[in-house]
């Protein structure tokens, strides 16, 4: 056994399975159950200081820690990709502390922790999608006070939000929100979908998977149970419209997945690639199979 793996074993012995102690996990699970019972409602929970900074996904990490069991298969993505630095770091953390199997394949994962994207591959029953949430309160930028926004939710007083959307249209002809586009969960609470591009919003609706949201710094957990109605806010004459770059992925050729724009030359030439790296790989494989068959 080399020095490195010895050290890693010591780490595993020092910390409980998936890092958090069982009492803390129980506290989080209780918050999760409450959140699932009241879809879209922000449940306060006693968030812990984690060994990563607030803002790096401590809420999602705590939710994942509370949900993980030894036979889970974990996938972690950031910006849709498995190999962005923070996704690598979080995946390593759970490999080290929970020793669970990991995958990059969306369909193989039982639990997916994500920042800023929903995978392109349709999720299934028995999968859990854990979102990292910076500001759980969709009304926060309209009303900074928690005491006020809680009241507004309790009274379903969402006029302020609709006025904001209306003013956007009056000013620009479009709703000015491109990501973290607010939704209404189960016809009741207006909910923040975390900063996913609005292209991903329709994937939240009626999803067979469990969707859990953790905001560590803000000490809130909320959830969308499977097969729940999730509607992006809009107007009859200005219906919600999912939006993406109108190009094809320059690797796999897909035109229906969300694309990242990259600058490929000094004169500013642009190219477009799938933000979901796993989806891109799968599409590339399918393409080569098709070519083989031809």
């Amino acid at each position, binding site marked *: 056994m080399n020095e490195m793996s010895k050290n890693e074993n010591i780490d595993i012995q020092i910390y409980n399975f998936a890092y958090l102690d069982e009492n803390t996990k129980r506290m989080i699970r209780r918050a999760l159950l409450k959140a699932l019972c009241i879809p879209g409602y922000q449940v306060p929970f006693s968030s812990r200081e984690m060994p990563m900074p607030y803002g790096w996904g401590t809420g999602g990490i705590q939710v994942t820690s509370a949900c993980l069991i030894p036979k889970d298969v974990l996938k972690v993505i950031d910006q849709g990709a498995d190999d962005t630095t923070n996704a690598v770091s979080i995946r390593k953390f759970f490999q080290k502390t929970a020793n669970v199997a990991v995958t990059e394949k969306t369909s193989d994962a039982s639990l997916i922790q994500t920042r800023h994207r929903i995978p392109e591959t349709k999720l299934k029953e028995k999968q859990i999608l854990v979102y990292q949430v910076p500001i759980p309160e969709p009304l926060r930028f309209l009303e900074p006070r928690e005491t006020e926004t809680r009241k507004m939710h309790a009274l379903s007083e969402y006029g302020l939000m609709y006025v904001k959307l209306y003013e956007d249209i009056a000013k620009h*002809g479009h709703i*000015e929100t491109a990501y973290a586009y607010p939704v209404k969960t189960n016809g009741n609470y207006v909910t923040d979908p975390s900063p996913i591009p609005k292209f991903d919003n329709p994937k939240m609706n009626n999803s067979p998977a469990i969707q859990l949201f953790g905001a560590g710094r803000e000490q809130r957990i909320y959830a969308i149970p499977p097969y729940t109605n999730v509607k992006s806010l809009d107007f009859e004459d200005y219906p919600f419209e999912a939006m993406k770059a109108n190009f094809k992925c320059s690797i796999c050729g897909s035109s229906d997945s969300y694309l990242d*724009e990259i600058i490929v030359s000094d004169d500013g030439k642009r190219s477009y690639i799938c933000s979901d790296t796993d989806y891109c790989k799968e599409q590339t494989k399918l393409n080569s199979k098709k070519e083989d068959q031809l």
Partner: protein
Amino acid sequence: MYVAVKGGEVAIDNAHSWMSEIRRGDTSIPNLSLDQISEQLTLGVDRVMSEGSLYDKDLAALAIKQSRGDLIEAIFLLRAYRTTLTRFSYSKPVNTANMTCLRRISATFKDIPGGQKLGPTFDYTHRLLDFKLLAENEAPISPTKKYNDNKMPHVLSFLNQEDLMQNEKDNNLDPIDITREPISYPTSRSARLQALSRGDEGFLLGLAYSTQRGYARNHAFVGELRIGIVDVELHIPELDFEINVAEIILTECETVNQFQGSKIEPPQFTRGYGLVFGQTERKALAMALIDRALRWKELGEDYSGAPAQDEEFVISHCDNIQATGFLEHIKLPHYVDFQSELELIRKIRADAKVNMKR
């Protein structure tokens, strides 16, 4: 072409190893020992212990070494470690009236029972760089005297005797522990005091200063500032008595502030309170001023809209670990969100151009 999002794992490993090398610095210079930090950078250690909410000099020294002297990073290391410790009991409230004082001053009375005691303070030093320290090897020796064992009762207790000072009433409730329960607003004074005691020294300093300059002005006299050693006692249920589990150094500050009485209440002085781990005078003073400003509702004062009076504003933003995390997270990739903004702004611009042509 795919380089932009690839290679995260190798990049992280390389960054970490480079950072370790830089932390050690020039290897021809002796390695910094933890004892050197905990003995010679004591005020930094105290700040890390107080805002890290964990009284352990050795761990704080280790955190300072590991963080290359970035105290907020050191505080973060200590907080993250603290999370992993089992909370097996709460101590009895410490009795600061029985403190063995290293320093004890009052700005309100010239002479007080137990006496004024200046202690180790920068207050009257001339801030001239002391170039002797460049060569110093011998430890300077200061004159010693047997500790004056006289009782040092709280100065404000003498104002209490005349009923000039508003008495703090015991509400018989257990204090809230904000590390175990999420804060909800409006919150209690116990939760506020805990948040302030863990809060960022710089943030508290700025806010306290703002009250002195007229944003919720409430002139504060330092009734007493004391720094010293107190016993931490734990009640053991099986034995049914208290045992002393630790001796810790605390800084306590009580300010005297006036408020207007009413027809049914004669005017009384009111109190701002600061209590912080270690020798942390600036922080304890600032905490007392902010505590007082936040008590406007309870004392029937007007809300002037000043930041220091706004409980939700102060408490939600005073924690430097939360603040630095959220501030610095904007360094993380936001490719996806930015892309969606790009699409939207292009679309809006295109529409606007069409409209202009019309």
